[in-house]
């Protein structure tokens, strides 16, 4: 059971085409992840990554299939699943503390104001914004706003953290330090997280497993890549690991060529319900159970 904390079971999503018919973004998508796992999903724009995340958040419901979290089907948005949006989506008329406290008081409706604020402050400190709690979002830099978004998401102590390209609008330095924060928080607390990204290095640094999605429409999960890098990896010396380049090349190779051609040349024995698991690493490759070997 703990092996399938989140389970995506055969979901499909269609949009009506202008002039009749419908476009299938994806269908019969299967995937599961254990508790405490950090998963990144990468693929080109328009492949339906955000739609997958929205169905996990409950903001959209799949047309077919079902998402199961902790043994219960998702029927709508829930406080068990926090979302960090691409834009920071803070409420501009509230202060930093007000934004986080709003989430806290939504989760624990009978808490006193002091208790709510104390709880919110704990998470504002966690993301390193102590001293800024009375500022409005407009007074903060882009990175600080996103930190508030992270604090707000974590403050409701969700079962899953869902992130839709949370750092894509930030400059490289800020992005790096926020990746460090997120990784530290998620490993320290055993937070289960699901994240969309375009950034291969971000995925390598953060994710335990990386889901590769082919181009849409009709996108599918091509592979699940297990991250061979050690769990105590650090962002600054990722590239020193022997496994870094095999992994990175594998991901880039997928994004550049295989994401287009994968659907036309399905590998033998490809099963939508069990997408192949690969673990690209330096010689000698470690066989991950039933996975195929990838050069």
């Amino acid at each position, binding site marked *: 059971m703990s092996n399938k904390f989140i389970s995506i079971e055969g979901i499909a999503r269609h949009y009506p085409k202008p002039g009749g018919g419908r476009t299938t973004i994806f269908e019969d998508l299967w995937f599961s992840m254990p508790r405490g796992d950090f998963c990144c999903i990468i693929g080109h724009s328009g492949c339906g990554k955000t739609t997958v995340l929205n169905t996990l958040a409950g903001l959209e419901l799949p047309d077919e299939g079902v998402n199961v979290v902790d043994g219960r089907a998702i029927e709508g948005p829930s406080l068990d699943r926090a979302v960090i949006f691409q834009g920071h989506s803070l409420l501009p008329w509230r202060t930093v503390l007000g934004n986080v406290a709003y989430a806290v008081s*939504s989760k624990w409706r009978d808490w006193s104001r002091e208790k709510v604020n104390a709880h919110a402050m704990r998470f504002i400190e966690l993301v390193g914004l102590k001293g800024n709690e009375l500022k409005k979002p407009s007074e903060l830099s882009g990175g600080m706003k996103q930190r508030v978004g992270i604090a707000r998401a974590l403050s409701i102590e969700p079962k899953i953290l869902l992130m839709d390209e949370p750092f894509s609008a930030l400059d490289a330095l800020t992005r790096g330090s926020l990746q460090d924060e997120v990784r530290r928080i998620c490993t320290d607390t055993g937070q289960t997280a699901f994240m969309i990204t375009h950034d291969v290095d971000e995925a390598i640094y953060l994710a335990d497993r990386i889901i590769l999605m082919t181009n849409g429409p009709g996108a599918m999960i091509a592979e699940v890549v297990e991250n061979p890098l050690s769990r105590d990896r650090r962002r600054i010396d990722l590239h020193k690991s022997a496994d870094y380049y095999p992994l990175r090349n594998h991901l880039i190779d997928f994004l550049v060529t295989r994401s287009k051609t994968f659907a036309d040349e399905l590998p033998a024995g490809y099963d939508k319900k069990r997408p192949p698991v690969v673990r690209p690493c330096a010689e000698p490759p470690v066989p991950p159970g039933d996975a195929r070997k990838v050069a």
Partner: protein
Amino acid sequence: MLASLNARATLVSALILFAFLLAWHMGVQGSKAVAPMDPEYAKLMGLTATQGKSAMPGPIDVGLKIWEHLNQPFYDRGPNDKGVGIQLAFSLGRVLLGYFLAVLIALPVGFLIGMSPLMNRALDPFIQVMKPISPLAWMPLALYTIKDSAISAIFVIFICSIWPMMINTAFGVSAVRKEWLNVARTLEVTPLRKAFTIILPAAAPTILTGMRISIGIAWLVIVAAEMLVGGTGIGYFVWNEWNNLSITNVIVAILLIGVVGMILDQTLARVARIVTYPE
């Protein structure tokens, strides 16, 4: 220039005012003494005929009159002779009463229209037809059905201030950013709490803009409405002084109408600044 922009603007304003007052003063000087006439006849004709004085009062006459009114704004010597303070208070009372009744209806209905695409489409034709009707066109209907001129005036204010508020509220509510609504959805916020903690603050600047337009229209309309219904109010005062041929009092009233209108507008502008959020 070392002086700030504000100081320079004030200086230019003062110069314009001075030039205007000077031109006004020169313009109403009139000719000097005209042909001599019988003293009895001259008494009847007044200064206009005997000394060639212009019928239009000059700025000094008006200034003295304003001083006179400001010294005793609240005197009451019968139905046709009340201080401007009393008249303005009557007008303000009608405007505020009609306006707040309109707020009570316009904001909830605007919310409903903004939240529900169905109601938006269903109510749109009614609003589109009602909006361009001159509020004074309602007056006969109001007088006939309500049978009370005072309440009819309030009704006219109500009907003219309701539309801008309703339309702006609906627009503000429907234009609330999807991402803020998604925040509320992921936090499982109840609909009532969502309305007050997300939609209302997000739409508040737009709503206040509508309220500001409405109070301006209401203040425009009250003068005309009071000219029709009579009895009390600054509009009635203007018409009564016209019948008295006291142009000085008419000018004083015009100035006061402008000043009060500005105060109403600035009050709402200040509230709007409080609820506006920088993004």
